[in-house]
């Protein structure tokens, strides 16, 4: 045990636990991870509700939906959603899903919960900052939630908050107080993410147990570690942008507001700023953010697939190398979100090249998953189903990414439903499947009980088929030029022909959304009434399953932290008694760790 580990252990033993210190202001990384998870689940329900509102509006434009007025009040007077609030719902759906569900649900939840358990540490390096990280996130959540209740409604400039719409308080109702609260909330979120990232990085580097080299870490830890580095470097750039945008809004500077702008009939007095600059700054953050979300999902997927296919992960080192390659490339591709911004074509061609390069490490990952599954003894646990579903979604969404990465094709498809389909597959649904796979897989470790496998499988099939039914038709709409962010498709003939398809998508959304109730019942029901879990229910080889109890207390291991002797995914090994060997198994090594 290193001296740093030892001092942490002493701290924990002297720490008396009351209800507040155990469940609310807890220092325990496992409790903080669960707090992130529960908060993210609540946000997911809100985000899903918003998507229902949007879908119902798109399928039945102009029809009175009485429940809208009951639920949304002045945003939908007479049961008809107002156009300016449709766009606000869309903005909040994007913001909530990207930041508060996917980022918090993956990096926040599994980073906190798994890093110390899987590398053999008693807790994060700096538990206090870890606790602050969650509560700053909570504060950001509260501020974001508050923006629904301000007079002029929540922010309405998209989750990308493009100026001048976001910078001019007079532009639309949502550009006022709602946008300010949005920026404040995001600034708090950045601080929370910074706290988290600092902790994850130093913990992974300095607090690994004896024998746990970087090359023996499970892929989930690798993925979260790399995502933390991305967060550390990408979020501060957004912070700089958010500060400038706040100055534009409140001190009337014109960093992002061009000269000669009219609102209504009045010429504004702003002199020369660059709205394109915001796009650069935002996407310099925004593209790494996509991978902050995606990488942990891919890591969880790799680990679950290896465990449940009972095979060593094919190409473990190639998987790490591809994670690193994706992480590096993600910083130099941001311009592909801006091909239609009038960018210099030469700069555009550079971004096309770097973007298409991402296909290489992504394909390495996909082929490695497939070869891991090849001739494996597959156990179709719900976690495994979701991991395999992720592979499918990642392929579908990744292929359309190659379309959109090419400037000539992107210029045709930009801002159509093709883009909506693309990112909902590759970022939205794939990352969500990562969360589900992680929850089903590690639920026994979190709550000491098992979730129902049968209901998990039903949940999987409804969700998986539902996602394809919702998003696949959008590709066809997009290729014929149906624009995204439209309130209703009743004005143009070429969009009106999709009335039936919009209705179909909406019904699929409602059913898929309702299917999530199965998950919620399973999740909360199993927490209290599930079958008691064994110590190692999936017969996995990684370190978190070697704790004394299925549900370890603060400090994780009662005795000494075990020493590690092997890699993380040793399944179907010929010399073992069972078909797997724990990382801590020291058979054949003699007494070397006692020296």
């Amino acid at each position, binding site marked *: *045990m*290193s001296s*740093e*580990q030892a001092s942490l252990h002493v701290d924990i033993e002297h720490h008396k636990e009351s209800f507040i210190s155990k469940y609310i202001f807890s220092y325990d990384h496992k409790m903080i991870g669960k707090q992130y998870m529960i908060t993210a689940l609540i946000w997911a329900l809100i985000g899903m509700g918003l998507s229902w509102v949007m879908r119902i509006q798109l399928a039945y434009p102009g029809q009175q939906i009485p429940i809208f007025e009951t639920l949304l009040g002045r945003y939908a007077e007479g049961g008809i959603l107002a156009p300016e609030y449709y766009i606000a719902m869309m903005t909040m759906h994007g913001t909530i899903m990207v930041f508060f569900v996917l980022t918090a649900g993956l990096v926040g939840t599994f980073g906190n919960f798994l890093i110390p358990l899987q*590398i*053999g540490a008693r807790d994060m*390096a*700096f538990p206090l900052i870890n606790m602050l990280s969650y509560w700053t996130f909570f504060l950001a959540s509260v501020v974001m939630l508050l923006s629904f209740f301000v007079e002029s409604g929540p922010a309405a400039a998209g989750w990308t908050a493009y100026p001048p719409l976001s910078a001019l308080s007079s532009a639309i109702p949502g550009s006022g107080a709602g946008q300010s609260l949005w920026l404040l909330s995001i600034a708090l979120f950045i601080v929370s993410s*910074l706290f988290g*990232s*600092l*902790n994850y*990085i*130093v*913990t992974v*580097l*300095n*607090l*690994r*147990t*004896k*024998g*746990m*080299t*970087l090359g023996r870490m499970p892929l989930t830890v690798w993925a979260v570690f790399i995502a933390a580095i991305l967060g*550390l*470097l990408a*979020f*501060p*750039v957004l*912070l*700089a*942008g958010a*500060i*400038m945008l706040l*100055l534009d809004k409140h*001190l*009337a*500077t*014109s*960093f992002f507001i061009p000269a000669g702008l009219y609102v209504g009939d009045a010429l504004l007095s702003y*002199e*020369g*700023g*660059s709205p394109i*600059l915001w796009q650069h*700054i935002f996407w*310099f953050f925004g593209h790494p953010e996509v991978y902050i979300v995606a990488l942990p999902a891919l890591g969880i997927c790799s680990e679950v697939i290896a465990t449940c296919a009972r095979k060593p992960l094919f190409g473990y080192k190639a998987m790490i190398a591809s994670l690193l390659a994706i992480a590096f490339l993600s910083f130099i591709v941001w311009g592909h979100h801006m091909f239609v911004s009038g960018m210099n074509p030469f700069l555009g061609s550079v971004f096309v090249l770097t973007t298409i390069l991402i296909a290489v490490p992504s394909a390495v990952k996909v082929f490695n998953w497939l070869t891991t599954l090849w001739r494996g003894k597959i156990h179709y646990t719900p976690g495994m189903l979701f991991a395999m579903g992720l592979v499918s979604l990642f392929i579908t969404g990744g292929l359309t990414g190659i379309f959109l990465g090419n400037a000539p094709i992107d210029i045709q498809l930009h801002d159509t439903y093709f883009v909506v389909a693309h990112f909902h597959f590759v970022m939205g649904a794939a990352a969500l499947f990562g969360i589900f796979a992680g929850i089903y897989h590690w639920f026994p470790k979190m709550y000491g009980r098992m979730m129902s496998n049968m209901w998990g499988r039903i949940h999987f099939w409804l969700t998986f088929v539902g996602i394809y039914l919702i998003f696949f038709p959008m590709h066809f709409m997009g290729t014929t030029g149906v624009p995204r962010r439209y309130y209703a498709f009743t004005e143009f003939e070429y969009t009106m022909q999709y009335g039936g398809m919009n209705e179909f998508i909406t019904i699929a959304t409602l059913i898929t959304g309702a299917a999530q109730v199965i998950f919620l019942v399973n999740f909360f029901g199993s927490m209290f009434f599930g079958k008691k879990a064994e110590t190692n229910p999936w017969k996995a080889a990684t370190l978190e399953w070697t704790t004394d109890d299925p549900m370890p207390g603060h400090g994780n291991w009662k005795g000494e932290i075990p020493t*590690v*002797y092997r890699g993380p995914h040793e399944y179907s090994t010929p*010399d073992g008694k069972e078909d797997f060997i724990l990382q801590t198994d020291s*058979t*054949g*090594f*003699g007494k*070397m*760790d006692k020296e």
Partner: protein
Amino acid sequence: MNHDAVLEQKKIMESEWGGGKAPFGVSWRKYMMWIFIVSDAFTFGAFLAAYGLFRVTSAGWPDTYEVFTAFPFIGVEAPMLFVAMMTFILICSSFTMALAVSASYKNDRTKALKFLGLTILGGSIFILCQVYEWYHIIHDGATMTSNPWGVPLFSATFFMITGFHGLHVLSGLILLTITALKVKRGFYERRGSYEGVEIVGLYWHFVDLVWVFVFTFFYLL
């Protein structure tokens, strides 16, 4: 068990990256400060990059040698002299900080305190100078939205970048004061490690470092 595996495990247990050790040879506290500095450098980098874009796209960027000419008490115009002096002061405070770290590692509490005090003094003078400079150019008519010398973005970026740096100096001063109190009360001596002083020192040098680049890109270029 295969003999190679035993040998490899032995090698791993002895290596710096084999777990249970600090692979960079620094504690996590110090490394955390380092990576925080990298992160913060990205914020400043984004500000300076945005400034660079404004600078090359706007026609009529004011000549800083004509704007920053004030110097207190001498009554003549001395372009850039005052800012150069501010830079000088901050570099000196960085120097005394390095000496404070050095003294604390030799367990010389009085000397460490003395140099920490000098660092705090230097930082405070720097802040006062910045207040003077802000006061002066506001007096000349510069606001966030306009200024008498040229494009409005000139004063907007000036206030934003120097203001953000000033906040860093201010928080650095608070951290330094806390550290000095801890040194005085023998906190680090009891703990047996003066690493805390070194970590605050890293932050302070970073603040100095940022100023070097702000001075260069905003004032001199």
